[in-house]
C-alpha cells in the first residue's frame, strides 16, 4: 500500500475525477395553455422526487390592513379543498410516504413536496385540488390565526435578528411594501376577513401566476401527461396588478433602537438600499457580501471578532424583485458598548469603499461561490429550488449556469464601486438592540 512520492504526485492528478454535475441542457420545460410553466429535471440518483410550486405573490403584494396575508394564505392552502377536505392534504401525502413544507418571502410563496417518485400522480391530484377548489373554512381560519400568532411570537422570543429585522425594515422603507415583515402586523393577523382571503386566492393562485419545478426520478413525458390532466383545466386569471410604489431615495442615515431586557450584549443590524436582483450589480454585491462575512478570513470577522469587539457577525443579500436592502449584523463581545461596536463595524465596511479589496480576496469569494453552486447541485431538492429561483429572479434558469461566468467577470474595481455606491452613510439604516431602556441621561 505504500507508494513512492513521485508516483503519488502523478496519480493525484487522476484524483480530479470526472464528476457529472447537472448542466442547463438537462433541464426541460413546457408551458400549459393556461400559462403555467413547468421545468423538469430527470435525476435518478435516489428513488425520490420533489416538486416546487412558486407563486409570484409575497408580502410585496400586500397593503396595510392585510399585511401578512400571503404568509397566512400559505397556511390556509393546507386546510381543505373540494376532494381533499381539512387535514386530508397532509394525511394523504404522508400516507404514501411524502412530506411537505411551504415558505413565504417578500416576493414569493413556495410549496414544496418531497415524495417517492412512484407517487407523482398523488402530488398532482393534491395540488390541483387546492389550486382550483380551495375551501376557505371560517373555523379553520380562526384556529390558524392562533398558529400564526405562535409562529410570530416564537420567532421574536428566540431570534434577535427577527426582532431587529422587522423594526429595521419599517424604518428603511417608508413607502414600498418591503416596509413590513413577511409575517405581518399583529393587528392585521387578528383582523383580516374571509372575503380578503377569497379575493386573494382568486387573484394570485392562478396558473398563469405560477412556476412549477419537478426534479428527481421522473420522466418528462409522465410529468407532461399529469400536468395536462390535472393542471391544464384550471382557468387562467387576469394578471395581478403590478406593485406601483417605488421607494424614494434615502437622503440621510436613519436609526432605531429596540429594548429587550434579556439581551446579554448589544446587537447591531445595518441595512443599505440596493437595486433589484435583476441589476447588473447583483454579482458584484454578492461577491462583496462574501468578502465581508464568509469564513474567518473575511473582513468583518477579522475586523470585529478577531479584535474581540464582536462574538459573531454575518451579512446577507436577499434575492429580490424590487430594490431591497443589504444587511450586516454584529453581536457585541461582553462589555463592548453599542457605540463602540457600531463605529468599528462601519469603519470595516467603509474601508472597502475607500481602499477597495485585493485580487486574492476577490478570487477567494469567487471560489466560495463555485463551492456553493456545487453544494446546491448535490441534492435533487437543492436543484429544484435553485433552478426555480433563477428562473424567477433572473428571468431564466439558464442564468444559473451562466452565473460562474458572471461572477468571473467581476473586477476589484467593481467591488469598490458597488461599496461606494450602496454601502454609504446616507443610504444606511442602523438598528440597535440592547437591554437598557432608551432614555435621556
Amino acid at each position: 500500500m505504500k507508494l513512492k512520492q513521485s508516483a503519488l504526485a502523478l496519480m493525484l492528478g487522476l484524483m480530479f475525477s470526472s464528476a457529472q454535475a447537472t448542466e442547463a441542457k438537462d433541464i426541460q420545460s413546457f408551458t400549459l395553455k393556461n400559462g403555467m410553466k413547468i421545468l423538469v429535471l430527470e435525476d435518478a440518483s435516489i428513488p425520490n422526487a420533489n416538486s416546487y410550486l412558486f407563486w409570484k405573490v409575497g408580502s410585496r403584494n400586500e397593503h396595510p390592513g392585510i399585511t401578512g396575508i400571503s404568509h397566512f394564505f400559505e397556511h390556509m392552502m393546507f386546510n381543505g379543498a373540494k376532494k381533499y377536505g381539512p387535514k386530508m392534504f397532509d394525511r394523504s401525502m404522508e400516507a404514501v410516504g411524502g412530506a411537505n413544507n411551504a415558505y413565504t418571502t417578500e416576493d414569493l410563496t413556495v410549496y414544496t413536496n418531497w415524495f417517492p417518485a412512484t407517487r407523482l400522480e398523488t402530488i398532482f391530484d393534491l395540488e390541483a385540488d387546492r389550486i382550483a377548489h380551495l375551501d376557505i373554512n371560517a373555523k379553520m381560519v380562526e384556529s390558524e390565526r392562533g398558529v400564526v400568532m405562535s409562529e410570530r411570537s416564537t420567532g421574536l422570543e428566540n431570534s434577535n435578528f427577527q426582532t431587529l429585522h422587522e423594526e429595521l425594515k419599517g424604518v428603511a422603507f417608508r413607502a414600498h411594501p418591503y416596509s413590513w415583515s413577511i409575517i405581518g402586523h399583529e393587528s392585521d393577523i387578528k383582523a383580516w376577513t374571509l372575503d380578503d382571503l377569497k379575493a386573494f386566492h382568486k387573484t394570485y393562485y392562478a396558473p398563469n401566476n405560477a412556476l412549477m419545478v419537478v426534479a428527481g426520478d421522473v420522466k418528462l413525458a409522465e410529468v407532461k401527461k399529469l400536468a395536462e390532466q390535472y393542471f391544464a383545466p384550471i382557468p387562467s386569471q387576469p394578471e395581478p396588478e403590478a406593485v406601483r410604489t417605488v421607494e424614494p431615495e434615502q437622503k440621510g442615515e436613519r436609526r432605531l433602537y429596540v429594548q429587550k431586557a434579556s439581551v446579554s450584549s448589544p446587537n447591531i443590524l445595518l441595512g443599505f438600499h440596493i437595486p433589484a436582483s435583476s441589476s447588473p450589480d447583483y454579482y458584484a454585491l454578492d461577491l462583496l457580501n462574501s468578502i465581508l462575512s464568509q469564513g474567518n478570513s473575511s473582513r468583518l470577522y477579522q475586523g470585529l471578532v478577531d479584535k474581540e469587539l464582536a462574538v459573531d457577525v454575518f451579512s446577507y443579500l436577499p434575492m429580490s424583485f424590487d430594490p431591497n436592502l443589504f444587511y450586516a449584523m454584529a453581536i457585541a463581545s461582553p462589555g463592548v458598548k453599542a457605540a463602540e461596536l457600531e463605529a468599528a463595524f462601519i469603519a470595516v465596511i467603509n474601508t472597502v469603499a475607500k481602499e477597495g479589496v485585493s485580487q486574492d480576496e476577490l478570487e477567494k469569494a469567487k471560489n466560495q461561490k463555485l463551492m456553493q453552486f456545487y453544494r446546491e447541485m448535490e441534492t435533487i431538492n437543492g436543484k429544484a429550488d435553485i433552478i426555480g429561483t433563477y428562473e424567477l429572479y433572473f428571468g431564466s434558469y439558464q442564468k444559473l449556469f451562466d452565473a460562474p461566468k458572471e461572477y468571473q467577470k467581476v473586477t476589484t474595481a467593481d467591488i469598490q464601486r458597488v461599496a461606494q455606491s450602496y454601502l454609504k452613510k446616507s443610504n444606511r439604516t442602523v438598528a440597535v438592540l440592547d437591554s437598557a431602556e432608551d432614555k435621556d441621561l
Partner: protein
Amino acid sequence: MNHVMKAPKVVALALLSSFVFALPVMADQKNNTGSFQLPAYEQLKLDNGLTVFLLPQHEVPLITMQATVRAGAVNDKVAGLAQLTSQALLLGAGGKSKAQIEQMVDFLGASLHSDGSVEGSSLRADFMAKDIEQMLAVFHQVLTQPAFDAAEFEKLKARQVAAVAQAKESPRMVIDQYFNKLVFGSHPYGNAVSGTAASLQSISRQQVKSFHQSYYQPGNTAISIVGDFKPDLMKAQLQKLFVSWKSGEAVQQPNLTAELPKAAKAKVLLVNKADAIETTFSFGGIAIKQDNPDYVGISVVNTVLGGRFTSWLNDELRVNSGLTYGAGSGFDRYSASGTFSIGSFTKTESTQAAVDLALKTYQRLWDKGIDQVTLDSAKAYVKGQFPPRFETNTALAGLLGDMYLYGFNQDYINSFQSKVDQLTVAESKRLINSYFPKDQLKFVLIGKAEAMKDIAKTYGEVTQVEITADSF
C-alpha cells in the same frame, strides 16, 4: 433567513433525528416507496489503529472528510472541556497560525469545522475535489498536531463564555440541556456539553492539550471520506500521511452503565425568563440506548405520536387548537442510555392548556393505541422520507462516523426495511408498554415563572432557577 414557513424547521429536524437509520430496500406494491441502497463503501484499519471509511460519490466534484473521535462531554473533568478542545483544534497547527489556515481554507472555497457533543467529537472538511492534496495536509495537521496557540486560546474561551450567555437568550437553544441535566442529574449524560461561563473560564490550555493527548489517538478515531475521489489513491495518501500518528497511553472511557438514575418521582424545573413572551416546554424521561434492538419499530410509533406534521401531537396542539406553531416528540440515544421527550411552545397564558393537552395526547398511546391505517401510513412515511437523508457527502460522512462511534454497521441498516414491514399493531402495543416513559415524568418549563408557578406544581416537585444563572 428571509422566509416564513408552514412548519418549524427546528422541531422537524429534531424529530427526524429519531429515524436516521431508516433504509427502505423493497416494499409491497401498496406501499411501494422505491428501493434504495446505501452506496458501497470500504472500511479499513491502518497499522496504527486508525479506522478509515471510503465512500466514493461522483455527482458533484466535492469531498467531505470527517474525523470522529470517541470523546465527548461524558469525558469532561471540567464542564465544556471536550467541546472546547474540539474548537481549539482550529487555532493553528503544523507551523501555520489560525489566520494562515483560515486564509488558505477560505481561499479554496472550502470549510473546516469542529465540534464536540455528548459522546463524540468531530473535525470536518468540505472542499472541491481538485484541492484534495492541500486539504488533506491541513486536515492531518489540525487533527494530530494542533498548536493550541496561547493567545488564540484565550480569545476562543472569551467567545465561548459569551456564547453560553447568548444561547440563553433563546429558550429553544438551551431547553434540551436543561432537560438532560434534570433527567440524568450527576451522571455524565447530564454534563453540559457547552460548559458554563465559570467552568470555561477555569479551563487551562494545558488541560486542553492533555485532553487532546488522551483521546485524539488513532485507535480512538475514524476518518470517513465521501465524495469524488479514487479509493486506491486515497488509501495510499492516507497511509502516507497518518502512518506517523502513534497511539499514546490506553484510552480511558467512563463506565456509563453505572449509576444511571432511577425515575423516582415527577420533577419540574421552572426556568424563569422574566421578559419571555411565550413558554417553551419539554417533558419525558429516560428511554432507550443506541443499540436497542426494537429501535426501528419504536421510531415508527414515535412518528405517529410526534414525528411528522399529521402526528397526534401536532394535530392536537397546532391544527385542532391553534395553541402552537409546532409540537413533536423524539428519542435521543446514547451508547448506554437515552431520553424520550415531547416538546412545544405556546403563549404564556395558554401554558397549562398546551401542557395538559400534550399529556392527554401522550396518554392515547396506552388508552387507544395505534390503529392499522395509521400504522400503515407511518410505515410508508418513514420509508419514503429516508433516501434524501443520505444524499449529501456530509450526511454520509456523518453516518459513517456514527457507525464508528456507536459500533453498528450496515447489517443493522440493512435490516431496517424488514423491521418496518414486520411491525404490527400488536407489536406496537408491546413497544409502547416497554419503552415510552409513562410515570414520574420530568418537565422543563422556560418562561415567566410568576405566571406558571401554580401550574408547575400540578406536574411534580418544582425547582425554580433563573435562566441567567450560570448553570443548567
